[in-house]
C-alpha cells in the first residue's frame, strides 16, 4: 500500500491582528491551518507571548514567582522595563488590580495615568486588563482608551455586559479589544456578531477564559479546538478571530505551583503548551522562565 500524506488544505484564514504600534508592533493570527501544521498550510506569525505585570504590589504571590520581580514590584514602570529589558518580553499585560471594586476600588483616572506611564516607558505592545467587573471595567477601560489614544492597546476584557462602551472608546482612540465569553463557543460567536456591527473584526481577539492544568484545563483546551474548527474547517467568519489565553495567575494560585518552584514553572508551561496545541494565538505568562521555555520550543 502506498502512503500519501493525508493533507487537509483549508481555504480560510484566522484573521491577522496587529497589536501595539511602531517598530515593535506584533502581528498574531493569520494562519490557514491548525497549530503546528506547517506541512499543510501557512502560519505567518508565531504565537504572541506576553508577560504579566500589576499596577499594584502583588499580594499572596508564591515566592518563586515573585522572586524574578522582587526589586521592581513596587513600581509598574520599572516592572515593565525589567520584563522587556531583562526577560526579553515582546509584549506585556498590565493588570489594573487597583481598580477592583471589591478591593481598593481605585479611580479610572489613576489607573489610566499608570497605564500611560507604562505605555510610554516601553515600546512593546501592551494588553491592559481590567478586573472582570463589567461596569467598572467599562469606566476604567474607556478612560484608558482616551488617555492612551493611538497606542493601539489591547483592552480586556470586553463582555456581553459592557461591550458597547468599551468597543466604542477603542474605535474612537485606535485600540484593539478582547471579547470575552466564558467557556462557550456559541457565546463567543454571539459576542463577535454584535461587536462586528460597529467594530472592525480585525481588531478583536477572543478570550474563551482559561483554566489551569488540573483545574479545568480540558474545558479550555476543547473550546479553543472547537472555535478553530468552526473558523477554519466550517468557514465561520465570526469564529476566525485570534484567541488569547490568560492563565499565569491561575497556575500560580494552585497548591501544586506554590509548593515547588520547578513544578510551578512546569505547571504554567504545560498549561501554555496545551493551549498552543489547541490553537491559541496569544498567551499571558506570569513566570519569565515558563515563557522562555515555551518560546525556545515553539518559536
Amino acid at each position, binding site marked *: *500500500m502506498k*502512503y500519501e*500524506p*493525508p493533507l*487537509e488544505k483549508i481555504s480560510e484564514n484566522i484573521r491577522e491582528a496587529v497589536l501595539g504600534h511602531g517598530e515593535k508592533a506584533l502581528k498574531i493570527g493569520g494562519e490557514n491551518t491548525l497549530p*503546528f*501544521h*506547517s*506541512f499543510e498550510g501557512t502560519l505567518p506569525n508565531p504565537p504572541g507571548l506576553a508577560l504579566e505585570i500589576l499596577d499594584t504590589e502583588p499580594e*499572596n504571590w508564591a515566592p518563586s514567582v515573585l522572586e524574578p520581580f522582587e526589586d521592581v514590584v513596587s513600581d509598574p514602570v520599572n516592572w515593565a522595563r525589567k520584563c522587556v529589558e531583562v526577560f526579553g518580553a515582546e509584549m506585556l499585560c498590565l493588570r489594573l488590580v487597583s481598580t477592583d471594586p*471589591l478591593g481598593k476600588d481605585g479611580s479610572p483616572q489613576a489607573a489610566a495615568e499608570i497605564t500611560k506611564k507604562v505605555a510610554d516607558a516601553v515600546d512593546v505592545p501592551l494588553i491592559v486588563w481590567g*478586573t*472582570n*467587573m*463589567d461596569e467598572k471595567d467599562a469606566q476604567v477601560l474607556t478612560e484608558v482608551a482616551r488617555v492612551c489614544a493611538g497606542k493601539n492597546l489591547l483592552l480586556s476584557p470586553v463582555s456581553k455586559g459592557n461591550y458597547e462602551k468599551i468597543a466604542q472608546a477603542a474605535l474612537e482612540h485606535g485600540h484593539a479589544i478582547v471579547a470575552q*465569553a*466564558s*467557556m*462557550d463557543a456559541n*457565546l463567543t460567536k454571539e459576542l463577535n456578531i454584535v461587536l462586528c456591527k460597529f467594530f472592525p473584526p480585525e481588531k478583536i481577539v477572543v478570550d474563551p*477564559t482559561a*483554566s489551569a*492544568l*488540573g*483545574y*479545568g*484545563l*480540558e*474545558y479550555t*483546551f*476543547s473550546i479553543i*479546538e*472547537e472555535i478553530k*474548527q468552526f473558523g477554519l474547517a466550517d468557514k465561520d467568519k465570526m469564529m476566525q478571530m485570534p484567541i488569547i489565553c490568560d492563565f499565569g495567575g491561575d497556575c500560580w*494560585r*494552585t*497548591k*501544586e505551583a*506554590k509548593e*515547588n518552584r*520547578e*513544578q510551578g*514553572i*512546569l*505547571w504554567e*508551561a*504545560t498549561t501554555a*503548551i*496545551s493551549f498552543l*496545541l489547541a490553537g491559541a494565538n496569544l498567551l499571558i505568562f506570569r513566570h519569565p522562565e515558563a515563557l522562555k*521555555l*515555551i518560546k*525556545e*520550543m*515553539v518559536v
Partner: protein
Amino acid sequence: MALKGAEIMKMLPKTNCKECGYATCFAFAMKLVAGGAKLEDCPYLDPEVKAQLEAAMAPPIKLVTIGTGENALSIGEEEVMFRHEKTFFHEPGIAILISDKGVESEIEEKLKRINAFDFERIGQKLSINLLALCFESGDKDKFEALVKKAYETTEFALILISEDTDVLFSAAALCADRKPLVYPITNENMSAAVPKLKEFGVPAGVRGASIEALVSVTSDLKDAGIENMVLDPGSKNMVEGIQNQTLIRRAALKKGFRPLGYPTIAFPCFMYPDKFKETVAAAALMTKYAGIVVVSQADEHFILPLLVHRFNIYSDPRRPMTVEEKVYEIGNPDEKSPILITTNYALDYFIVSAAIEETNMPAYLCIKGTEGLGVMAAWTSGKFNGEAIAEFFEKYGMPDKVKHRKLIIPGVAKKLVAELEEDLPGWEIILGPLEGSDIPKFLSEEWTA
C-alpha cells in the same frame, strides 16, 4: 469503522434465515456496524468471507497491550482526532528511561524513587506505567542485570531498548512473560527479529526514519504475521513529533490506511537534554496522539504535571465529573457554622471540602447542581447565578439551618455578589478566596457567625 452496513450486507448469505437472531441479513449487517452483533452469530458465513469482514471491520487503530495483569497498558483503538468529537479512550503510557550505563547505586536509587511514587487526584490514583530499559553500556551482562532487577523489584510494564538485536532478544527472553515492548524493530533487523517476536509473543516497537519508511516496515511485519506494533516515525523534536503523529492518526482514522493503524511511541528523553523541555514535550506529545511517551526524569515534580495533564486530556468530555447536588454537612455544623457554596463540578467539591476539613471548623458546604460546569461557566449558563442559588437556598431550607445570615461564595464569582445581594435579601454575601488552598486561612481569620 471502514465498512458500511450495505457493503457488509453484500457479503452475507442473504437468506434471511433469522438464525442470528435478527429478522433479515440487512438488520444483522446494520447491527454489526452499530456494534452489538458478532460475525460468529451468522452460522452460514463462509470462513474466507468472515476473515475478510473481520479485517475490514477491525478498529482503524489496533489495540496493543504491553505488560500483563493489573499493570498491563493497552493503547490504541482511538476513534477521533479531537477529544470534543467524542473522547480519547486509552490513556497513553508514561515510561521512565533507565540506562544501564549509570552507576549501579544510582540505578537502584532511581528504581526506588519510581516505586515510591504515590500520586492521587480527585480520589483517583495516578501512576506512571512503564520502565524503558536502555542498553547503552556495551556490556550485555550489565544490561541483563538491569532487566532482571527491573523485572524482579518492580511491577511496571517494560520497554526494552537496544540497537544490538541479539542483546535485545536475549533480554526479552528474561522477561518475556511480562510481555515487554521490544524496540527498535527496523527494516535492517526485521528478518532476525520476526522469529523471536513470534517465539516470545511480545509487541514490536517499530522504528522508521520517516512515516514512509515506517509504512514499508509495518507492511512487511504484517505479512510476516506480526500483529502487535507500536510506531516510532523517528521524530527529532516536539513539533516534528506532533506533525508525524497527527499524520499517522489521520491516515489511520480518515483514510483507513492499515499500515499506520497502530498506536505510537515518542521519545522526549532523546529529543531534549533539558529536563524542563523534555517534560513540556512529553505533555504536548501525549496531547497530540502519542500512545507512549518516554521521559528520563524520575523526579516527582516533573512527573506530577504529566500525570495531571494526561488525566485532564483523557477525561471524557461527554461525562463531566460531578458530585450529587445537596448540602454536605462537614463535621456536625450548627446554627453558627459558616455556609459555603460551589458547583457540583467534582474538582470544585473535592478542593473545597478538603480545605474545610483541614480547618477542623464544622461547616455547611452547599453543592449546587450545575451539570459538572465550574463556577464561571455555570454562571454564564444560568446554573449558578443569583436566582439559581436563591432557589437552592429555599429548596434545602438554608435559612432554618443557621442563625446568622452570611454566605461565602467562590472567589472567582465576583459578578455574583451583586446578583445575590438582590436575590437573597438580608444575606451578607462574602467573596471567598480565589484559591481553594487559601480557604483554611480565610475561615480561621475571617469567619465570625
